Structures are given as C-alpha cells and as structure tokens.
C-alpha cells in the first residue's frame, strides 16, 4: 500500500492555479522523482504535504490517516522529513547544534525537565552528540562541527541540511533538489545515500533537475507542468514520453 497519497489536490494563490487536481502516491523502498520545469508547482506540492500551505480541494493521507490541514510540526512528527531547496539552516548556531535540534523527543526540550531531570538530559545529550558527529562524519563535515553554519560554503550547507533531515529519523523524506549547489565530486555519494535510504525501507520523494540523477536513482517519476501531472511511470518511460521530450528536454 502507498505510504503517502495525494488525492485530487488543488491549490490556488491569488487566483493563480498552482496545483490542479493532482493525485500522487509514494511508496516505501522506492525513490519517487518529481520532475518538470521551474514554476511547475513541485515545491508547492511539498509545501502542501508538509502543512505549510493547505489545499483548497482534495486530501492528503499518510499511512492511511488524513493529514490534510495539520500544522507542519505535526506532519513531521508523523514521520515526514523535509529538505528545503534553500537549506533553511540556523545560521548563527554551530554545525553540531544544527543537527542536535533535529532529534525527536528530547527530555530537555521541556524546560522543567531540563532543570529537574538534568542527569537524564545530559546523558541523552552525550548520545545525541555522538550520533550528530556520526552524521557529520558521514557527510564529511565532522571537522566543522563547532563552526557557525553561516560560515560554511553553500555546498557544505546543503550537506549539513541533508545530515539534519537524517537526524529527524523520518520514514518518509521529501528532498527538494538535494544535489543543487553540491560539488560534482560529492553528487554520486549523495545519490548513493538516497538509494541506500530507500533500500533500508524509507519512502523518498525527490525533486531533481539533474536527469542523470533521476534515471540512476529514481524508481518512479512524475512529470509535472503548470500544476498538473502530465506523465508518470518509470523514469525512462516518463523521459521517453513525447510531450515531456518536447516541452521539457526540447527534443
């Protein structure tokens, strides 16, 4: 059964129809790519899933539960993690602190517990710190752990954002252009990681303009233009579709 379902979802902003009657499904163990020109409504679809905007019509289901209209933090707690295209890091926190904010259900997030259950909090902090360093090591930023996030290069910031969304430990990941701005040498590792996450059982939604990345790492693809689903299937089927070829690739 599909883990995440968009059922005839529509959304207009100031009379402009950004998303028109879109139905999508995302599966466990699979990378589902959303492709299409800029302004097609792909990021709006992510915003609709995450609860940053709410649909005018239609419904969104996660694990069979209707999540339409839930606030973003509740959507994340249900198990949907989001990587933003424009990183959204905490600039004046350290790289390590950026990761530490992402762990769920921390005892010390409650100020009363932070005072009364100090020992438990500190024990948790030590294990979270270890986990944070593992994640940073994994994206090659361990030596920057105590630098401010604003002092990283854009590519490094993107990798930090990837590590941060992994720290959320969500079952479903919405990745908005994870490879954009990352140094070309690191892209294969990043795509490899995305594949591994899918193989480990997660459902991955991927917005991507790099067609090689899509054909190499995605299992399924939707082509979206002007807020509508034009074509869907395997990446090769979608990229082979004549309308898609003409409008998107230009051949």
């Amino acid at each position: 059964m599909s883990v995440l379902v968009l059922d005839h979802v529509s959304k207009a902003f100031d009379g402009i129809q950004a998303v028109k009657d879109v139905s999508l499904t995302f599966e466990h163990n699979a990378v589902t790519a959303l492709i299409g020109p800029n302004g097609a409504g792909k990021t709006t679809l992510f915003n609709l899933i995450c609860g940053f905007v709410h649909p005018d019509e239609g419904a969104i289901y996660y694990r069979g539960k209707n999540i339409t209209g839930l606030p973003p933090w509740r959507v994340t707690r249900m198990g949907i993690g989001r990587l933003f295209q424009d990183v959204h890091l905490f600039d004046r926190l350290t790289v390590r602190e950026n990761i530490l904010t992402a762990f769920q259900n921390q005892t010390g997030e409650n100020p009363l517990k932070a005072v009364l259950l100090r020992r438990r909090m500190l024990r948790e902090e030590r294990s979270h710190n270890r986990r944070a360093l593992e994640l940073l090591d994994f994206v090659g930023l361990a030596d920057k752990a105590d630098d401010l996030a604003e002092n990283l290069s854009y590519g490094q910031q993107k990798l930090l954002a990837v590590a941060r969304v992994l720290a959320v430990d969500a079952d479903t990941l919405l990745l908005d252009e994870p490879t954009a701005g990352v140094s070309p040498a690191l892209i294969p590792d990043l795509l490899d990681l995305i594949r591994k996450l899918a193989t480990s059982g997660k459902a991955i939604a991927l917005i991507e303009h790099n067609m090689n990345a899509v054909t190499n790492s995605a299992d399924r693809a939707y082509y979206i233009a002007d807020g509508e689903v034009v074509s869907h299937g395997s990446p090769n089927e979608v990229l082979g579709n004549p309308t898609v070829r003409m409008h998107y690739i230009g051949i």
Partner: protein
Amino acid sequence: MNYLFQVLTIISIYSILALSLNLLIGYTGLLSLSHAAFYGIGAYIGTLSGIVFGLSFFPCLLLAIAGTVAISFVVSLPSLRLKGDYFVLASLSFQTIVFVVLYNWIAVTRGPFGLTNIARPTLFGFSLSSDFAYFVFSGIIALACLGLLYLIGHSPFGRLLKAVREDEIAVSALGKDITRLKVTAFAIAAGFAAVAGLLFAGHVRYLDPTSFTLLESVFVVSIIIIGGAGNVSGPLIGTVLLVTLPEVLRFVGIPYTIAPNLRQIIYGLLIILVLRFKPQGISGEYGFE
C-alpha cells in the same frame, strides 16, 4: 555602607530582570517591551497577597509567579502570532495597558497613592529589615534565579529557542511546535520578572505604578543591548554597568537637577555607539541587526 547594600540589592533585582528578558530577546529573538509590566504585576500581586491575606514571603512569591505567568498566557497567545515589528507593538501596548490599570484601579492598587509601609519579610524568626540582611536575601534569590535561567538556557529547550530566532520554518519542519516554545519562553520570563518585582517591593517598601512604566521596560532592553544578548555574561555586565552609572554620576558631583537628564543622554549615546560599533554588545554572542 547601607548605601552600598542598597545598590547591590538593586543589581540583584535587575540581574533577574535582564537575564529573564534575555531568554526572549537574546535566545528567541522576541523584542519584548512589556517586561516592566510583568515586573509590576508580580510586585503588586505578591504585595497585595501579603497585605490582604497576611501571607508570609514565600506563599506571596508563589502567588505572584502563578498570577503573572497566567496573565502572560493571556497576552502571549494572541500577540505571539504577530511577527517582527508587530509583536514589538503588541508588547508595547500591553505595557501601556498594565500601567493604566495599575494607575486607575484605585480600589485594588490604590493607584497613584501607592501601597505604603510594605513589611520586609521575616525568615525563621529573623527579620530582614536591615539593608544588609535584605541584600543577602535578594542576592541569594537572584543567584538561585540565575542558576535556574542558566540551566534552562543551556538545554535542548534553550537551543530550540535560538533555532526559533534563526529560522521558524526550519524549526517547525523539524517537528517542534514553535508557538508552544515561544509561549513557554514568555511565561518563564514573566515568572522571573514577578520574582524581581516582589524583591523590589520589599526593598523600597513602597509601590506605585511609576516604577513600572514603558521607560523601565526600555531600560531593561538597554541593559541587554549594551551588555550583550544570548549568554549569561552579557546581561550581567550590562546590569552592573547601567545600574551603577547613575551612582557614579552622583559621586562626581553632577547636580541633581542635571543628573537624570544626563543619565538618559548617556544611555542613548551608549546604545547608539554599541549598535554602530559592537552590535553584539560588550559580551554578547548574538548581534542585533
């Protein structure tokens, strides 16, 4: 000597105010101009509990904290929906409303006549009526408050408040309820302001609304801007500096008629210089932009 203890008592009181407001300004990035309102509400609730119910200091303190925190929810739930400058304006209007209520609700607060002859607390049969004893008492309470605020700030909660200051969207995408975080920070800051208020009432032994004006809120904000925000040392340095400055003016022999104006000019000048040349204050970790 009594004079020295009085100044040290005032420093204790303002260090509580500055460090609690720091949780909002320095950590959460909420420029609140209503801290003196909560300071005043705490002072009045605590003092009136003593006068009306004849309670001793600590029950009065608990009532003052509980009442002030409850009022903070009434204000924070609607006003924290507002962003940036609009939140500043909402906090400013709350500050004004509280002053007007304290001034005009004569049946309860005695308005401009004030509450007089406030008794200093007695602890275990030991009266705190001397300035030295009261300084030791407020110093201990201030240290306890500073300790608590340090533990609250140095925790995942404090880290999340700083994250809210940096990027609210990202915080909510990480599964954290930003409204709850902000409302909680607001309530904690209000609760500590109430403690400072009750200590102030016992110190001057007289309460009237003019101690809790917008100017007082701005004064606490200035402490944070000049001293620095986001850590413990900044607001503490700011407190010592800004509280002792008028006393220094007194010693260099500036006449009483000029001193208050000169003080305002120096505060204003300090804020401009700090914002221009050292936006993170003397010892803060987070710069105002």
